[in-house]
């Protein structure tokens, strides 16, 4: 009997700190957040003073705002481009570092290192590269002289700035995804490759017919991770482009590279509309769940086929 009481006591004592933190940091703010998205919540109406329920108008107003719709579409485009770029690069990198090249261990470290540095700092580095180093390369190499023209600055045009975000996103994340592929590749039995080689399969046939089906499970994980990472991108967006350059959408000037996470932040703090920012965050949450569930189930189905 005494033993049972002790077990009970330890159960609650050991669980208590995480329960408190979880309640204070996640559970309560989560429900407050869902609730606030239906109210006229603002920073001046802090402690519940004059807080009124206004139904769905934060949501309807969000969907009437071209800047939000644009951010939404842009984020979807960015997510798709980024997923493809990261996974393709990471797969090639994984093939490289699992081959028998002499410097493979050095390559592994080099490819992985960008991932250890925060997106904010990486964004500033690349801002300098795109705004200063690239034009300087254009000046010194005659056949790239177009790059030196200030009118051609990569970050000054919307499409190229979006590509710049993809490049930085890939550079940052490919090394990490590479490691997941490496772990999967190392699990593929060597005999399969040997047998295929004897049967006369070349490298590309072996990759397509043996490697890819054998690591199908890894694709589900990497696609999920890159999807979530791209959809939530914030740090690089802030420091690389800060949402700029401006562009037109539905007859209104908008920020050409403002992804959803940045749009939510700006709506709440720069436009000073907390409740609407919160409503957008709720939309963000729902969309993220739907698309990641769709992705995982689609990949699972593919896994079985392969």
């Amino acid at each position, binding site marked *: 009997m005494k033993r049972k009481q*002790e077990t009970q006591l330890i159960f609650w004592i050991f669980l208590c700190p995480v329960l408190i933190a979880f309640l204070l940091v996640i559970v309560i703010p989560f429900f407050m957040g869902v609730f606030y998205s239906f109210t006229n919540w603002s920073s001046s109406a802090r402690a519940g003073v004059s807080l009124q329920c206004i139904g769905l108008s934060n949501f309807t107003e969000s969907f009437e705002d071209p800047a939000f719709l644009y951010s939404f579409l842009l984020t979807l485009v960015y997510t798709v481009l980024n997923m493809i770029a990261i996974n393709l690069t990471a797969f090639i990198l994984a093939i490289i570092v699992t081959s028998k090249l002499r410097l493979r261990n050095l390559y592994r470290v080099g490819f992985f290192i960008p991932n250890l540095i925060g997106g904010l700092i990486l964004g500033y580095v690349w801002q300098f590269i795109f705004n200063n180093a690239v034009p300087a390369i254009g000046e010194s190499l005659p056949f790239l002289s177009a790059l030196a023209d200030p009118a051609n600055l990569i970050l000054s045009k919307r499409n190229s700035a979006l590509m710049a975000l993809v490049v930085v996103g890939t550079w940052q994340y490919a090394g990490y995804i590479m490691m997941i592929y490496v772990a999967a590749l190392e699990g593929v039995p060597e005999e399969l490759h040997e047998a295929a080689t004897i049967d006369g399969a070349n490298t590309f046939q072996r990759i397509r017919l043996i490697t890819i089906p054998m690591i199908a499970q890894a694709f589900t994980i990497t696609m999920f991770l890159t999807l979530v990472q791209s959809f939530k991108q914030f740090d690089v967006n802030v420091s690389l482009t800060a949402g700029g350059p401006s562009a037109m959408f539905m007859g209104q000037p908008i920020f050409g590279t403002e992804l959803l996470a940045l749009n939510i932040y700006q709506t709440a703090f720069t436009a000073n509309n907390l409740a609407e920012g919160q409503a957008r965050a709720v939309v963000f949450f729902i969309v993220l769940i739907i698309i990641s569930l769709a992705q995982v189930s689609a990949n699972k189905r593919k896994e079985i086929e392969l």
Partner: protein
Amino acid sequence: MNKKSNQNYILECIAALLFLAFIFPFFIVLINSAKGSFEVTQQPMKLPDDWSMILKNMVSIWTNPNIQYQNSFISSSLITAISLVVIVMFSSQAAWVLVRTKTRISRFFFFIFVAAMVIPFQIVMFPLLSWFRMIYTVTGIRLLRTYQGMILAYLGFGLSLSIFMYHGFIKSIPLELEEAATIDGCSKARIFFTIISPILKPIHATVVVLNGIWIWNDYLLPLLILGKGNRVQTIPLAVANFAGAYVKQWDLILTAILMAMIPIIIFFLLAQKHIIRGMVAGSIK
């Protein structure tokens, strides 16, 4: 055979090119940290004339009262270290009792912790601020702009994944180990600290790596909780402030960036195996 070596040659070239492309940004940061402000913007691709400028620039960042680099470094280190201790200690304890207690409530808690992993930060961040403000008005406990607020938040956001990782590992520890200790009269708490926690060492390392890299680099959470330009600042906040406040003084920004990168790169080179293993384990969950 000849075809094979040709293929290898091509692969070798692609690999070398990709490697150069990947380290090119670091190279740019390094060479431009050793230049003066004029040279950085006029000749960003040129190798520096005098490498000792790098030290001069670093000292000027370290001592510049406007940047507060020293304080940021100390704050970042304190926040990361204490958050890690708290996360490791409390999540491993919680995971252990959740595995060893087979009741409905225990299963429910575990399910909720894991389910919370899908909640993106964006949906809780604004209410978190007003909620922390409410806590201050009611209890007088200051959570905004303080270390304790940051650490509490990191425990809250870090515990789900950490508990999940501990949970998976603890399930594989044979129960007989604990039963034997119980028969010898060992108390529950002592079993955890003297038997279980040492067995968990590899998972402790994974949890430290995963959370440590995230916390050290995090920007949005400190931006919200600590705010811009206050007494307590982390390094990413300091760099962001500094890059925004000065009209693009790239020589100083790049040196500050170099100084922000150095600790992580040293840490990585020292614990490479653990870091890579830890981060891959964290992804496969």
